[in-house]
């Protein structure tokens, strides 16, 4: 029985749902090695931190991160102490010291934990067909949440270019987030830069469900003050299969005060639909 075998078993129980019952031999071995017990607890805590609730991913992720950070900080002095001890022992060679440090249980466990994070992150990028496990979904949720935080922060900047960056980050975010919806709504209605408003509209054009934005898009279509915004908004609405939206567009097109080009566009699409 070795440390590595026990750690491998622990990782397998956490990632692959392997038998979580420790054999008697393994339990005895762990009892004899309290440092190994600590490492198993560390991996378990690390794993538990990753599987946070979907309801409040941002706060939990923060808490998890700081918990992890404090553990890592706590681990550093003990590793330094081990290295110092190795240096002070004159009758051991540098190769032995290195081996001692390399194969001490804490770095192995930390390396294993990092490898686990890397593997899960790599799998998360392989698309949903390879995922499915709740922990993977949770990790994806955390990444999305991090992107949302970053997007919201950038969208509040005074520089238009940074706000554009914020909109770009929102591509990787979950647009059902109410704060993000509110911010995007605010930007398409009030941002001083047409570039930023167009970028938001471009982002919304990728949505499969337009319902939170339908009324705003209709209002932008009816507003003759900015033809670029008008066109971008009406194009999103015209691409929608929602009959209610198409009906509302027909009502708008009947208003003679509407930009004639927009009216024409709606009429053309209507003619194509019924042709």
């Amino acid at each position: 029985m070795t440390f590595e075998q026990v750690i491998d078993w622990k990782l397998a129980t956490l990632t692959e749902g392997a038998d979580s019952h420790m054999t008697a031999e393994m339990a005895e071995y762990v009892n004899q090695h309290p440092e190994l017990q600590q490492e198993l607890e560390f991996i378990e805590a690390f794993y538990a931190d990753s599987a946070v609730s979907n309801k409040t991913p941002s706060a939990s992720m923060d808490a998890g991160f700081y918990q992890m950070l404090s553990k890592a900080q706590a681990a550093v002095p003990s590793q330094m102490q081990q290295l110092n001890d190795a240096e002070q022992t004159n009758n051991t060679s540098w190769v032995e010291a290195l081996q001692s440090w390399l194969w001490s249980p804490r770095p192995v466990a930390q390396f294993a934990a990092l490898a686990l994070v890397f593997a899960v992150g790599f799998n998360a990028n392989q698309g949903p067909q390879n995922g499915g496990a709740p922990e993977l979904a949770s990790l994806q949720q955390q990444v999305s949440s991090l992107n949302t935080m970053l997007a919201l922060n950038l969208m509040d900047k005074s520089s238009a270019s940074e706000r554009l960056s914020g909109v770009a980050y929102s591509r990787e975010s979950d647009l059902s987030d109410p704060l993000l919806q509110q911010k995007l709504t605010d930007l398409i209605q009030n941002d001083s830069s047409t570039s930023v408003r167009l970028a938001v509209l471009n982002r919304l054009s990728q949505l499969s469900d337009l319902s939170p934005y339908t009324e705003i898009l209709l209002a932008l279509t009816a507003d003759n003050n900015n033809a670029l915004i008008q066109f971008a908004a009406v194009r999103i609405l015209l691409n929608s299969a929602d009959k209610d939206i198409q009906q509302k567009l027909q009502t708008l097109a009947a208003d003679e005060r509407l930009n004639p080009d927009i009216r024409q566009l709606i009429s053309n699409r209507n003619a194509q639909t019924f042709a």
Partner: protein
Amino acid sequence: MKIQTMKCLVAALFVNAFALGNAQAMDKNYSLTLSEPNEPARLEVELHYGELKVIGYDGKTIEISAKVTEPKNEPNNKHKAKIKARMKEAMGRHRTEPRSSEGLKSVKNQSVNLEIEENNNSVEIASMAMNQYVQLTLMVPYNTSVESEVFQGGGIEVSDIRGELELQAYQGGVYAKNVSGPIVAETQMDDVVIELSEFNSSTPTSLTSHLGNIDITIDSSVSANINVQTFQGEIFSGLDTEFVAVDQVNKNDKKRKQKIVLGGTMQAKVNGGGQDLSLSTYMGNLYIRKAN
């Protein structure tokens, strides 16, 4: 942190008693020392009536030259001139008739009214006068970031600047050369013409014109995703990379709903792609050129 606030009002300069009617100009120069001369500055300019020129130079101060003169930039085609005349007419409708000036002599406004404020390398320059055309020329350190708005009159010209640019002109155009961006520029009636010496890929660049053309020249080594859209104009490209329509296939998280939009926008991934460089115009054409 060293914080220095300087505010001055440059006004009522009776340098020479000449009239604007004689097409002569009066000017005022000012050298502004930055609080942190070795750090990059951020410049914000708001000009209600006039034109702005910003030139980068190898210095540590901001050299300001303001000149009150007659407007010289007129719309460069008949269509734009017509729109401008209509706007003027619409604004004129709300003015009352002038009263009799018999026996009075005309007193021309001979002051350059300009407000300059500096706070910890953040510089704000504003001319709010609606009745005097101000030609403002600023020489700034190369790495200055510039944010400017010109509401009426002419446009904005920028050259030799390495900082971030945010330029908005309502009647005139935006012309920038030997700049690296990122740039966010917007015009209502006139053109946006940009010659990029480099392409800053830290944040997106986006150029928008409502009625004008957009003309951009980029170096052949630039890597970028160039997105283009014009609603009534045409697109002309001198790039080796082809523009292709971007198809979008989106599915919601539960895989129960999907949306497919074929050819929503056109994009060219130049040199493998990179940061976004977006060009959008409603009525104008788009010109994408490769630097020689």
